[in-house]
């Protein structure tokens, strides 16, 4: 994978608004953002209802994902271009999710909704009408999804990359600062995890930094590119952004996203937790 096959610019999207082989998909943390205006022709996926099981804490099943995309008019042969707010956090999460279920051609709009808005490009309110499809997903690709036991086994062995803000890593905050802080789980990070906030990979306008800059940032933070890597954050969306950088932009072989992330790990009984700004010992 590389930047050429996984990332498109806002201008590219504007030039392809009427291309029937492309489906634009908006995914936002604020699930009402789409309703206030979206890129012409874009459909919406709601990460809280469309992409999460409504009883267990897990993703929708293969069959549910197939039904969802068929209903929304996304076919296996479509090029899916994802974008969203929050510097593409949830769009990157959806990108990883589409890859988890085997969609072949997925791209991310560089800079997402913010870049589009800062460029003063057009947003519309009319909803697109799409014909239903018959979508077929693959079984989940667990080579890109980490579970809690994988994380515990990776302490001191693999690269663990904590992509939350420095204050969340150190245990001074429990959630991103645009959310209330009251939480059940313990604060801190997985011992030996490097702190590389997702934001280091992005410019202020939300676009990704150059490959050379990205390699330097992760290398300087202690990521060994010869080792396998697990990225995590609080609920797995910011770490999807970093997974995208390491796997899709820099082409690292074995990179997994831990979607359970701190809300799971920080609630586990019997696992080690490190506090403060240093990675800590295995």
């Amino acid at each position, binding site marked *: 994978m590389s930047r050429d096959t996984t990332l498109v610019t806002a201008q590219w999207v504007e030039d392809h608004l009427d291309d029937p082989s492309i489906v634009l998909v908006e995914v936002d943390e604020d699930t009402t953002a789409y309703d206030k205006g979206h890129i012409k022709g874009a459909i919406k996926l709601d990460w809280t209802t469309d992409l999460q099981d409504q009883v267990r804490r897990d993703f929708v099943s293969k069959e549910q994902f197939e039904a969802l995309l068929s209903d929304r008019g996304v076919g296996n042969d479509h090029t899916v271009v994802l974008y969203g707010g929050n510097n593409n956090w949830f769009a990157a999460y959806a990108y990883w999710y589409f890859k988890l279920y085997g969609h072949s051609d997925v791209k991310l709009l560089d800079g997402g909704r913010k870049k589009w808005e*800062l460029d*003063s490009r057009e947003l519309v309110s009319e909803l697109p009408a799409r014909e239903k499809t018959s979508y077929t997903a693959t079984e989940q690709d667990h080579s890109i999804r980490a579970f809690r036991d994988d994380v515990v086994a990776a302490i001191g062995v693999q690269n663990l990359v904590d992509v939350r*803000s420095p204050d969340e890593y150190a245990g001074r905050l429990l959630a*991103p*600062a*645009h959310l*209330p*802080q*009251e939480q059940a789980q313990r604060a801190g990070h997985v011992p030996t995890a490097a702190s590389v906030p997702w934001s280091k990979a992005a410019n*202020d306008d939300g676009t990704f930094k150059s490959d050379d800059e990205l390699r330097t940032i992760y290398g300087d933070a202690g990521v060994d590119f010869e080792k396998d890597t697990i990225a995590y954050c609080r609920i797995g969306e910011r770490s999807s952004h970093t997974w995208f950088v390491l796997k899709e932009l820099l082409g690292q072989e074995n990179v997994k996203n831990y979607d359970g992330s701190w809300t799971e790990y920080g609630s586990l009984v019997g696992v080690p937790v490190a506090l403060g700004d240093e990675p800590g010992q295995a």
Partner: protein
Amino acid sequence: MCGATEGGLSLDGIDVKKEAVVQGQVLRDGEPVGNAYVRLLDRTGEFTAEVPTSASGHFRFFAGDGDWTLRTLAPKADPVDRQVHAQVGSVAEVSITI
């Protein structure tokens, strides 16, 4: 976002005693800017959070004790940085003009 009230955003439903709230409004020529982005940077300048402004130009963060920087981005405007001090149990109100 909550609706705007005189003097700032409504704090209904928020336990202010437990939060270090930083909130305010983005204005251009005295008018609210509803399509701006406000970033919260920590004392080292590292990104901590970002929110789009509401239709009334308002934004809100739940920070921690200490000094923070608010960086505001908006179409056809240069970024504007403002320093703010946050403290658990208090609400820091910031008006930002771009």
